[in-house]
């Protein structure tokens, strides 16, 4: 099960400058764990000490903000596209 993940600039050093990577997981939580296996250190950047998503990161599944879905429990399926985007933009 492959999911396309778009990586924001500040994390591209961890993905060897790759803007788009593939990962697996049945939901966002599992996807982050899988990303961590492939790119060690990435989880610490996405989540705080308690394992919660940092408040200045937004995650979108197929262009929808996961805060309108089920947050970290949002389910994923093969072919889904996930974007990780810094929250600070616009306005």
């Amino acid at each position, binding site marked *: 099960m492959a999911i396309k993940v778009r990586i924001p600039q*500040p994390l591209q050093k961890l993905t060897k400058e790759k803007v788009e990577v593939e990962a697996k997981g049945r939901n966002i939580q599992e996807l982050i764990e899988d990303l961590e296996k492939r790119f060690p250190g990435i989880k610490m950047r996405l989540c705080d000490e308690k394992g919660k998503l940092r*408040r*200045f990161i937004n995650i979108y599944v197929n262009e929808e*903000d996961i805060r309108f879905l089920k947050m970290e429990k949002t389910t994923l399926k093969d072919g889904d596209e996930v974007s990780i985007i810094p929250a*600070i933009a*616009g*306005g």
Partner: protein
Amino acid sequence: MSYVKGLICKECRRSYPKRPLYVCEYCFGPLEVEYDYGRIKRILTKKEIIKRSKNMWRYWELLPIDKYPIVGLYTGFTPLFRAKNLEKALGVRELYIKDDSVNHPTLSFKDRVVAVALSKAKEFGFDTVACASTGNLANSTASQAAEAKFRCFIFIPADLELSKIVGTLIYNPILVAVEGNYDQVNRLCSEIATKYKWAFVNINIRPYYAEGSKTFAYEIVEQLQWHAPKHIVVPCAGGSLITKIWKGLKEFYKLGLIDKLDTKIYAAQAQGCAPIVNAVKENSEIIKPVKPNTIAKSLAIGNPADGVYAVSTVRESGGWAESASDEEIVEAIKLLAQTEGIFTETAGGVTLGVAKKLIKRGFIPKDESIVLCITGQGLKTQEAISSKIGSFIKIKPNISSFEENVIKKIRR
């Protein structure tokens, strides 16, 4: 000459160099410009400021540019005036309008931020500028990019008001209308900004861009003879303006340009898009995003980037937050026009609509100084009110038709 030390993360305080960066590499917190206030204090006195030209650059030491600005040379120093008729209508003693609906060159407060952003983009050596906009920013970026000879990409939600589209296209940018709301436009632009090395004024140039809003607060203080008002009501979309107004007041206090810092700041949003107001009222630490549904399209940001800072501005200053319905927005636009002769856009209707409620409910006392921030021009959002303002009386070109159709029928 510059008084900027560098950028600093607002959350974890890590330092970064003066570059087109906008988020902290470690915690994703927003980066903010850091100044050498000690040196600024020695130079930027009231005596020095009042000698300078009446535009936003009279406070240039507090703006993040290293060279002479290249655009917006006549931006800012818009009127601040006592609104006597509106005072009567609202039953308050001392009310002022700070009127950016006549800002130069494109009639909104966005001219301030764009002037800084494009001057900075030139310093950084960019040849292309871009933005995600609900309209006013589109107008201003396209206009000032034309003057500064940048290639220009503008991204807007496809359902924008006609005047905001025409007021962008006239400058001949590449205008991209995205099928979606502003938050979707913004997300797309964040992804584009990662891939294309352009100066996105409200993404990678954002730390510099946002500083331009502080001049709105500096001017209010100077125009009130170096006194900060007791209450300021600010319209909120992304939450940047309100945050920077508060920062501007704090800086003036730090520099000794005002004696005390006791201004309460109030956030105004439309009922159909009030994530900041909701967070204030629910005393929440996080902003719950919403899907906007309001005639106030310039404020229709459901996922405000500076939402948490807007909320902390309200809390820290001791203010409050309120929202206005579409009907209240239209009524307030009409009230401002028919009392003070100022035709503001929907965002101004939100500000006045909310101020009315806050005064009525006692959140803002009637006997203290109040400033309303009017940030945009009514001619740009005619769709919102055109069916609610009556219509003309059509007559034949002779006196009897005039008397028959006009004099006999009017009841005033």
